[in-house]
């Protein structure tokens, strides 16, 4: 009845009484869990997790747990949780789990990693994952959490986790020793490039990872082998992109060097910075020093240093005074990304829209409310004035409208709105920023009724979001409350509230026509065929008279995980539909998630680069996109005939739906019609 397992003590330091005592307790707890019936397991689990936590706090604890990985899994530690199916685990979710304040979450994540380590090392033949898969997964996890390997616990971690923060660190040192540092670095570099290709506004996490690599390379104790070669561009773009700052001399020294340079040398510096910035989307702190210096050296060099094309240069020359003021007010060594935002904003030519330039002047002189100043200082520190910080945010958002991210908050709607305005209606965005930052209040209208963000009780987010870019930080709390209030105004109406909320919230260009393929009351799929035909007729160039999409349109998707299981409803923007370089019709869209390169399962992998995407765009072949769509808007006056899509194409899309989020939403009729269909893929 009782399964006694031999304890392999070979990897445990001898004479460590404390660890040995804890291990005896752990083994007893594992035995209790193993022997208990399924329904009683949840009651025995906390003791296993808690004892494992204490073991993991000890030196050598991770090795001891690794030796027990199989026993732990077989006892049922992962039963009924996502960790039960390691083949579907998503590496990027580990960060959140390991930072959790809940000890059980941290421990179970650590146990899962150690289990996969045993699998990767061939010590544990797992029925669901191969050693290669496990190895691959672990290197990704390591790369994503490199901060755990090299950094001491931050103040935030100490505050939320206390002693618990030691566990991920012990775990990662153990993992790194067993897997080898060289695997991690290359993976990490690849990962950084993948994220940078999406050109996010918030680059702080990327900068941290690049810094980690730089530290790693400089540490003689870490043997990177042949790995890490691809990191040079990343490291140099942050710490030494040009001749005069190659050895990272510090901002003051660099400023001194600039003062003794002739124009040829300045030209060289300008080109070097511009290339680094446009290559990576990262801006070195030295770059603003040069830009500020060049304000007195002619606009030719300034345009060069911003890496502008003829469009951008024209814009710079037209709005010379404004650009100079923007550089003086917003581009500092503490706000280097403002340079990139400025360059891209000039390239977009939006200053030529009559209200934008005056609105930028207002932004330059905007006095921020006490509350806005506090929030900016609290989040970004007070190395620079809150106004400059916000200006950096504004420049970045106008330059990179698709770089907006929602952070770790349920505010995809607000993030989408900001991105849409920056993209389509920049002066409206500037108006919103002014109201929010100066007046602490935004008023929007819903069906003729004014809604004030001050009067609305609560938003979708339960707590004030902090992990955002400066503009979102100030504006999102207001938008979120208004959005939630609009939803409350729709309570009692039949159908999905987005029908009314989306056009009122985002802008007049959101189509008032609305289609949804889910019956709100039952959650069942509804009229999937006509929904799809209508979507094709509205958006697909082959079926809508080859009309490119004019305005960005809000749409709703059913997000699925890498096993094609439904996760939740999500707000995105459809930007355009066109042929990619391989002549595949693709939908290009904006996803306010922070990293859009997601695997939605069943062969659907969202692409973010290499398929004709512009910076920040996500894309999918049109069919695959249609299969995850559940809400779209259209102009009711332009509604054409339902598209005559071939049955095969329709079946393919329906197949994707039925194999994923629609699997348990098929109404009785549909089930019979498709009873003979075999799921494929996966």
């Amino acid at each position: 009845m009782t399964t006694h397992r031999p304890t392999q003590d070979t990897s445990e330091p001898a004479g460590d009484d404390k660890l040995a005592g804890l291990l005896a307790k752990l083994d007893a707890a594992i035995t209790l869990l193993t022997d208990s019936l399924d329904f009683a397991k949840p009651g025995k689990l906390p003791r296993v997790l808690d004892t494992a936590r204490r073991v993991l706090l000890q030196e050598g604890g991770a090795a001891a747990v690794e030796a027990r990985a199989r026993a732990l899994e077989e006892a049922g530690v992962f039963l009924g949780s996502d960790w039960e199916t390691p083949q579907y685990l998503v590496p990027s979710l580990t960060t959140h789990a390991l930072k959790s304040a809940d000890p059980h979450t941290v421990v179970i994540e650590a146990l899962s990693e150690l289990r996969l380590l045993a699998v990767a090392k061939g010590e544990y033949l797992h029925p669901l994952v191969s050693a290669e898969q496990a190895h691959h997964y672990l290197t990704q996890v390591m790369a994503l959490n490199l901060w755990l390997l090299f950094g001491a616990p931050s103040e935030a971690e100490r505050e939320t986790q206390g002693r618990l923060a030691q566990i991920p660190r012990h775990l990662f040192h153990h993992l790194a020793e067993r897997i080898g540092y060289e695997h991690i670095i290359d993976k990490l570099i690849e990962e950084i490039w993948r994220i940078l290709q999406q050109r996010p506004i918030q680059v702080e996490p990327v900068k941290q990872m690049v810094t980690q690599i730089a530290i790693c390379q400089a540490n003689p104790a870490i043997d990177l082998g042949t790995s890490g070669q691809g990191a040079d561009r990343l490291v140099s773009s942050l710490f030494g992109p040009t001749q005069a700052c190659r050895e990272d001399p510090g901002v003051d020294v660099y400023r001194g060097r600039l003062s003794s340079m002739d124009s040829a040398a300045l030209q060289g510096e300008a080109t070097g910075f511009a290339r680094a910035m446009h290559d990576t989307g990262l801006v070195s702190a030295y770059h603003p020093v040069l830009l500020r210096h060049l304000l007195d050296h002619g606009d030719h060099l300034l345009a060069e240093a911003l890496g502008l094309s003829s469009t951008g240069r024209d814009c710079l020359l037209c709005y010379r005074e404004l650009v100079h003021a923007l550089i003086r007010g917003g581009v500092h060594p503490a706000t280097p990304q403002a340079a990139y935002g400025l360059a891209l904003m000039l390239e977009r030519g939006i200053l030529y829209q009559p209200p934008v330039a005056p609105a930028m002047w207002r932004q330059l002189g905007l006095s921020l409310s006490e509350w806005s100043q506090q929030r900016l200082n609290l989040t970004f520190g007070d190395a620079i004035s809150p106004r400059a910080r916000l200006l950096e945010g504004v420049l970045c958002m106008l330059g990179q409208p698709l770089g907006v991210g929602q952070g770790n908050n349920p505010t995809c709607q607000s993030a989408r709105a900001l991105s849409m305005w920056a993209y389509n209606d920049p002066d409206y965005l500037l108006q919103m920023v002014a109201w929010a930052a100066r007046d602490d209040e935004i008023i929007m209208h819903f069906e003729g009724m004014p809604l004030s963000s001050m009067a609305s009780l609560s938003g979708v987010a339960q707590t004030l979001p902090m992990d955002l870019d400066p503009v979102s930080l100030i504006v999102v709390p207001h938008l979120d409350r208004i959005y939630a209030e609009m939803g409350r105004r729709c309570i009692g109406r039949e159908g999905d509230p987005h029908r009314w909320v989306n056009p009122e919230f985002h802008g007049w260009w959101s189509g008032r026509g609305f289609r949804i393929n889910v019956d709100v009351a039952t959650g069942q799929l509804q009229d999937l065929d006509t929904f799809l035909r209508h979507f094709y007729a509205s958006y697909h160039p082959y079926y809508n008279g080859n009309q490119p999409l004019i305005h960005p349109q809000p749409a709703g998707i059913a997000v699925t995980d890498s096993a094609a299981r439904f996760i939740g409803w999500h707000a995105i923007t459809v930007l355009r539909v066109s042929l990619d370089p391989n002549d595949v019709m693709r939908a290009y869209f904006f996803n306010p998630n922070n990293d859009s390169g997601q695997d939605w399962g069943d062969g659907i992998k969202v692409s973010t680069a290499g398929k004709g995407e512009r910076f920040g765009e996500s894309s999918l072949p049109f069919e695959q996109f249609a299969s995850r769509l559940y809400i779209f808007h259209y102009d009711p006056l332009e509604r054409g005939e339902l598209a005559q899509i071939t049955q095969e194409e329709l079946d393919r899309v329906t197949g994707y739906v039925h194999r994923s989020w629609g699997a348990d939403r098929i109404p009785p009729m549909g089930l019979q019609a498709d009873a003979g269909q075999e799921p494929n893929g996966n």
Partner: protein
Amino acid sequence: MKKDPNKGYIALLGWSLNAIEAAENFDRRYVVVAPDWAEEYCQKHDIPHVSWNFERLNDRSLEIAETLKEMGVDVAIPLFEETVEWAGAINSLLLDSPRLYGQSLLLRDKALMKRRAQLGGIRVGIFEEAHDKADVIRFLKRVNQTLLKLDGDPNDPIHLKAFDKAGCLGHRVIRTPDEVDTIPDEEFPVLMESHLDGWEFAVEAWIHNGKIAFLNISEYVTLGYSVFVPASPELEKYRPQITAQIEKLIKAFDIEFGLIHPEYFVTSDGEMYFGEVAYRPPGFKVFELLERVYGFNAYQASMLVFDPKTTPEEVSAYFPKEVVDADGYAGCFGVYPRRRVVSKLEIPEEVEDDPYFESHELTPPLEETVTKRTAFGTHWGLIYFKGDEAARMKELLKHMEELDFYV
């Protein structure tokens, strides 16, 4: 485990996963009688189940007894205070013994219980029923007059307890007439008792055929906070007297079988005072502590002594020898937040690093503001310890009271 059709068929009254797990791993057939919210869970996990809502006994009460009888159930075991009289009613039908119902009512009412004990020659403190606050003030005065206190001397406290609730629920200590005002009117009527200065302990006794099959003494370090088993040698030296007391109790209440859980005080002169007795498993997870040191499952032990088909040989083979067969001392401590505002659970490092520390059942706080404790209140979770020395265990459990687990 495979069920033996020649042995009894047992109904468990009330919902306890630990009891169900024990029953599942025991050779008796069983059925869980629990409210209908448990039905879905039972179906999902193949747990034999009969839905029944335990409200007050009423004219439908016979229905559950008859249902169980038709199923061939031999005996019902109460798992909670609230199901004690149900078990009495059901067993009086199943075992064709009407007095079992009367017995269960005695065991449910603390005032009746004390009278019966007194009649059986068992020493109890001074007690009285109170119907309103004036009764309480009068009793407090009288008790203190009896103790020859002068005006201005600090009063000896009195204890107030609900008639029919388990353990510390509704238990208050009153020292001054002012404190009487804090008792809400809806708590009346209550039982009042004089305070006995002494060493309080509890007993778990499994009884079969009117004889003690196993007698455990649970030592309280601080009432409502901590308990450990087996008792320290200092308390165990009273075992013969305690056994004699339990035998008196069995006789006074006419108990043939089952598990009783009485509480006593032993005063400094070695005199035993009876507190109360319950006919159900004790709170504070004493069952788990017993399993930790003796290795037998106390729920299974209860099923054994309740089952009318159990033989005396089976009983004597089942139970270990008290104290000598225990492989150490197991104790637990009930954590109450000590601060008014708490934000998180933080087990003190000295606790976690203590070799006696085994595990805990504490969960993070759901609310930041701690409700002010009225009466004894309910603890927020237990921490378990095990070790070799009773004295060290006692000291450790006592020390826990000075630590913050919620900060």
